């Protein structure tokens, strides 16, 4: 390569690297605004969290009954603890509907054995269905556990399982929960409190998801909150803190929350039915249902809100191997792209107000496309420096800017946690979190970007499988934490 051409290539690489850096800074500048919304909202959250008398509310006859839907596929290791956790909720009237989605393992058998269930006669099965879904093979019940039903159906995916649950449910509110999750005993009443304060406008409420790895768990309840010991779950703890406290509180304060985690969300059943229930075929059904609700409400010009309740906590098992984590993140990337494509007509469409003009464009420009700019910008600067090693400090600066931005936001989320929730009480926890927050930006973020990119490739390949998944018994997890 001649010197002039080499110079041009170097300029091009540097220019692109700079563009990527400013892009990343813009993303975070917007994120900073969102986090500011979170901080503005936190005083109101503190008032609701600390001063609402949940003990009184949890025994009130005026609290609306809820159907909890637990779609389950190959969950034999965790399902018993999860169901026990759900049966011990402090809530006046609710039912737990476990939908066995044609599991290939012993999920159904362990449930039948543990709770002494027997099949209900066909006459007690629902005659008509509000949503199109697979037929129910059998419903298992035991009068000793009057609020537990296990619905057995052929495998049809998570969305189909949720639709089957909705068809069978008896109550006007539905709560969706992952089968590998545990709820705090007061999680449901905390979430329904948000609904009850404004039932006319509230169509859905999202709960907070925290990482249970490392915690001591007894009888399906988290007894002692601790940070995970392993690297990957620890990194995810901080990541979840940032996403849920730094992001979702802010988005919900401007009614632009695009996702309610499938692990824990509350919905008004009739509104879900009105938008056709959950969509089949791809991952990302949790984001899809929220987008459908936003779209439907905005088209009807109804005054509505999709709220977030950070003090309603659901504990989940975080993947602790790169293989499982990568599979999860690729699935999330695929689901996100699919949803953005499906709702592309909302993009910068003023008819859809805060969703069309703000939330969706942010998601497309800064979430969906983020991995491309992050990876290619980094590679461009690596290329630039490799052509002139004396410019190593430019790569270092790029790297430090990335790290600093990530650190600021992780610390911001930790501050929100300290102000409003204080789940991690020890001073040592704060140090550990900062140390691992540094590690987030030393490769983990880039790995995430790569997995997301791979998820996009899977989408273009029309991949429809769920990907690898591994469950661990809660007892094993808790024993490790106590050891």
């Amino acid at each position, binding site marked *: 390569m001649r010197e002039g051409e080499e110079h041009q290539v170097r300029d091009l690489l540097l220019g692109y690297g700079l563009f990527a850096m400013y892009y990343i800074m813009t993303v975070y500048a917007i994120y900073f605004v969102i986090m500011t919304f979170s901080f503005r909202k936190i005083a109101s959250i503190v008032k609701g969290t600390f001063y609402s008398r949940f003990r009184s509310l949890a025994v009130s006859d*005026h609290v609306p009954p809820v159907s909890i839907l637990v779609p389950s596929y190959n969950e034999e290791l965790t399902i018993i603890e999860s169901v026990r956790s759900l049966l011990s909720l402090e809530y006046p009237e609710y039912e737990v509907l476990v939908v066995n989605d044609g599991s290939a393992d012993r999920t159904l058998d362990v449930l039948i054995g543990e709770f002494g269930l027997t099949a209900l006669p066909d006459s007690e099965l629902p005659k008509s269905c509000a949503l199109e879904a697979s037929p129910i093979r059998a419903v298992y019940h035991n009068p000793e556990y009057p609020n537990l039903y296990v619905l057995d159906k052929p495998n049809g995916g998570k969305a189909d399982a949720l639709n089957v649950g909705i068809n069978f449910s008896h109550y006007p509110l539905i709560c969706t929960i992952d089968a590998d999750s545990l709820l705090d005993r007061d999680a449901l009443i905390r979430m329904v409190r948000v609904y009850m*304060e404004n039932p006319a406008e509230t169509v859905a409420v999202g709960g907070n998801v925290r990482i249970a790895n490392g915690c001591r768990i007894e009888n399906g309840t988290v007894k002692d909150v601790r940070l995970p010991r392993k690297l990957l779950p620890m990194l995810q703890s901080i990541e979840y803190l940032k996403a849920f406290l730094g992001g979702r509180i802010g988005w919900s304060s401007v009614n632009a929350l695009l996702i309610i985690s499938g692990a824990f969300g509350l919905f*008004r059943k009739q509104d879900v039915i009105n938008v056709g229930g959950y969509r089949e075929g791809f991952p990302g059904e949790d984001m899809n249902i929220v987008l459908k609700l936003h779209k439907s409400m905005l088209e009807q010009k109804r005054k509505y809100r999709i709220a977030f309740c950070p003090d309603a906590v659901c504990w989940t098992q975080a993947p602790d191997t790169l293989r499982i984590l990568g599979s999860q993140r690729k699935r999330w990337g695929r689901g996100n792209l699919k949803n953005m494509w499906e709702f592309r007509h909302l993009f910068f469409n003023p008819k859809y107000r805060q969703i069309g003009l703000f939330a969706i464009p942010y998601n497309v420009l800064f979430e969906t496309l983020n991995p491309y700019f992050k990876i290619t910008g980094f590679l461009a600067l690596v290329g630039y420096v490799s052509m002139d090693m004396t410019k190593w400090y430019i790569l270092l600066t790029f790297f430090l800017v990335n790290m*600093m931005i990530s650190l*600021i936001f992780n610390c911001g989320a930790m*501050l929100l946690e300290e*102000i409003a929730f204080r789940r991690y*009480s020890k001073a040592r926890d704060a140090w550990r979190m900062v140390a691992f927050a540094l590690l987030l930006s030393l490769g983990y973020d880039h790995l995430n970007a790569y997995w997301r990119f791979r998820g996009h490739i899977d989408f273009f390949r029309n991949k429809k499988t769920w990907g690898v998944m591994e469950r661990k018994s809660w007892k094993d997890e808790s024993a490790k934490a106590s050891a």
Partner: protein
Amino acid sequence: MTGGNLELAQLFIVIGAVLVVLILCGILVSKAIRLRRARLIRQCELENRAYFDRIRQGLDQDGALPKPESPLNRIERKVVQEKLMAWADRVDGVSREKLTALCEDLGFVERELGRLQSRWSVRRVDAAYRLGLMRSRRAAGALLEELRRQRFGPALFVVARSLALCARGTDDLEQLVAQIVKHRRPAHEMTASILEEAGEDLGELVRRLMASGHPDKRRIARLMLDKNPALRLSVSAYPDRKDDFSSQASQQPQEAHEAQVERPETHAM
């Protein structure tokens, strides 16, 4: 990277580092303060164990509860107040009245009434919550004023619940309902659950709400009647309104229709 960009990036790194250090210091100081306070409270609880035992015994005996033998310092006041509030929340009848009287005698109610005038809304809500736990009727007027000041949000219901716990009578509860429904985002079930915390006989309140003609108030009254058979009996005992409630079933469809016309989403559930 050109000089200007590089300098900007370096400035950003420095400012970011300062910000991170400040946030971390804030978190660590907050944790340290909380841990120290928890230690002092534990220590104070141990030192005052004999006094708490005397109060416990006093709850089962005639006469007022004993006051501390020596004046309380700041931490002791806090610990004693917390303890009395927690007990008042768990017991009822005469025992609760005695605890409320002790809270008033020790100046806890007065102190919270002062905090209820604070510029800071979080402090006012905290004071309202504590006054509710102490169930002092002296606080009802100030709580009603605070309820009037509140904008729609979680704090509105916190203050309303405290007012229900401290209410002097049906007038206070009627005012409470009026203050909630004026926001035109009626939380009927939440309001009904709050009203049920009141120690007052709710029959008269239900009668007034039904007679008000206001669809939201009537809906709240109906919810209370639906879920509380004893209240239904109590209300039907009012001779002048008997007909209203016995013919309630026939009125419901028309009222439901009225409410639907006003706010269709209320019934979407």
